[in-house]
């Protein structure tokens, strides 16, 4: 990004075409929920989600809303809240194609894309049924040793990385702090879309305390300001998850009707305090 004009949430969503591969972080890492809701509102179709390295509410909402064709991830979970109900149901119904992975294989695939190399070797994993079901993964004999089988995972290059952060600047630099998997996803992806709590006038790269945790504008296509933009999941260092809302979601999303109702009205209508 080099323009100084922040974009709107809808402008960001418009940059995610149907059929795109879309890298998303887990609930604890920084979720651009406003854009996810805009995608659902638009009726996005055939998205290929990539968990960085796992997924939570964002994936469950998109899957439930019928926006998703495939999911590549180490897990889909609502964490403490429990299983992801729409994901679980879609798997049972065969409504989405799942590409089960493991966290380090996703990180390694993104690193391969980051480095512009076709694959990354990875230790571990051998003997897991994951390999059986991932024809794109290869087990070779380590050319630097003998009789040493070694997994190679191909590069993962998402069309788009989408996430939410506490801070960005008017130059398009985005502070991700220690959540460097977001930086990795942005390096690996063709385009990166970011929502942020706050856009500062200061150049984050010029401040030695912020620069080390900053994704340079070079990698960023668009930034939109979205205060409380991760709600109802939390944002590290800023606000906790809205457990009440998430529990409400888990309950409602256990049925098709409840899920539709939640999409319609994610925030519970304010109720009058019970009379005493």
């Amino acid at each position, binding site marked *: 990004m080099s323009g100084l004009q922040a974009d709107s949430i809808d402008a960001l969503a418009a940059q995610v075409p149907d059929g795109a591969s879309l890298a998303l972080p887990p609930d*604890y*890492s920084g979720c651009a929920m406003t854009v996810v809701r805009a995608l659902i509102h638009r009726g996005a179709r055939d998205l290929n989600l990539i968990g*960085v*390295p*796992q997924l939570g509410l964002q994936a469950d909402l998109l899957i439930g809303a019928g926006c998703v064709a495939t999911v590549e*991830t*180490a*897990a*889909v*979970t609502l*964490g*403490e809240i429990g*299983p*992801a109900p729409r*994901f*679980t149901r879609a*798997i*049972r*119904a*065969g409504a989405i*194609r*799942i590409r*089960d*992975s*493991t*966290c*380090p*294989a996703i*990180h*390694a695939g993104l*690193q391969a894309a980051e480095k512009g190399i076709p694959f990354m070797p*990875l*230790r*571990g*994993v*051998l*003997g*897991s*049924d*994951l390999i059986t*079901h991932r024809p794109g993964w290869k087990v070779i004999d380590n050319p630097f040793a003998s*009789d*040493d*089988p*070694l997994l190679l995972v191909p590069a993962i290059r998402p069309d788009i990385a989408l996430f939410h952060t506490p801070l960005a600047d008017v130059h398009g630099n985005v502070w991700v702090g*220690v*959540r*460097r*998997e*977001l*930086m*990795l996803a942005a390096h690996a992806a063709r385009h990166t879309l970011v929502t942020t709590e706050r856009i500062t006038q200061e150049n984050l790269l010029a401040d030695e305390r912020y620069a080390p945790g900053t994704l340079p504008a070079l990698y960023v296509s668009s930034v939109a300001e979205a205060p409380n933009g991760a709600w109802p999941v939390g944002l*590290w*260092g800023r606000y906790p998850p809205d457990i009440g809302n998430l529990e409400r979601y888990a309950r409602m999303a256990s049925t098709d009707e409840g899920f539709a109702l939640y999409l319609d009205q994610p925030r519970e209508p304010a109720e009058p305090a019970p009379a005493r």
Partner: protein
Amino acid sequence: MTFRPDELLIAAVASMLDGLQHVAVGASSPVPAGAALLARERSGGAMRVSILGRQRDNPFTDGGRELFDCAAQGRIDAFFLGGAQIDGCANINLVGVEGYPKSRVRFPGSFGSSYLYLLIPRVILFTRTHTRRVLVPRVEFVSAAGTSPPNVYRTGGPYALVTERCIFHFDRARSRFVLRSVHPGHDVEEIRAHTGFEFDAPEEAETTDIPDRATLALIRGPIREEMRDVYPKYVAEVLEGAFARAD
């Protein structure tokens, strides 16, 4: 002295960690976290404990991949895994049962297990639920393999399996669980009845050590307090909840 079931579990797991340098714990594992914190306390702070997802005890600054890189570097001595299914060869299933990929019952997924199981020297399997549905003859999907052929690069693997009823040790050479101790109030007969896989048991089964006074004081003192900010519900409901029945 009376104790709570989870106090026994925390003490039992902690005793498997004493003397290690660096123990890592997944985010949603209160018993392993409690055990690691207890072991650290007993080490006088010499042991490093990394609790993933916890701001204070999470030492990683290089993104999600650092835990995995760190394990491959040999800098993590112990870790914990669970399993919706665990079989007698210590394979674990975190993916699903009754079909794949169209599983009738789907679990979240393999997370980092497929990798860490092979690279962290002492992986302790923890599952509270000890039934034939969890402890099966053969997992339906191998998320992470309990054992590997000799030519596979493997610096780690299963060390023990801790449940609500007992503790198994894993004999890597024989690829088989061995009953190490039975928690007070349980017996071998019951364990056989609720275990779907075959395992070895000594003639006379040992009883899991009851946590001593000093250990309980630590758990009920600094450990419980340290755990409260990450596991408030667990501390209130379990570690401050009902005692075990007296036997």
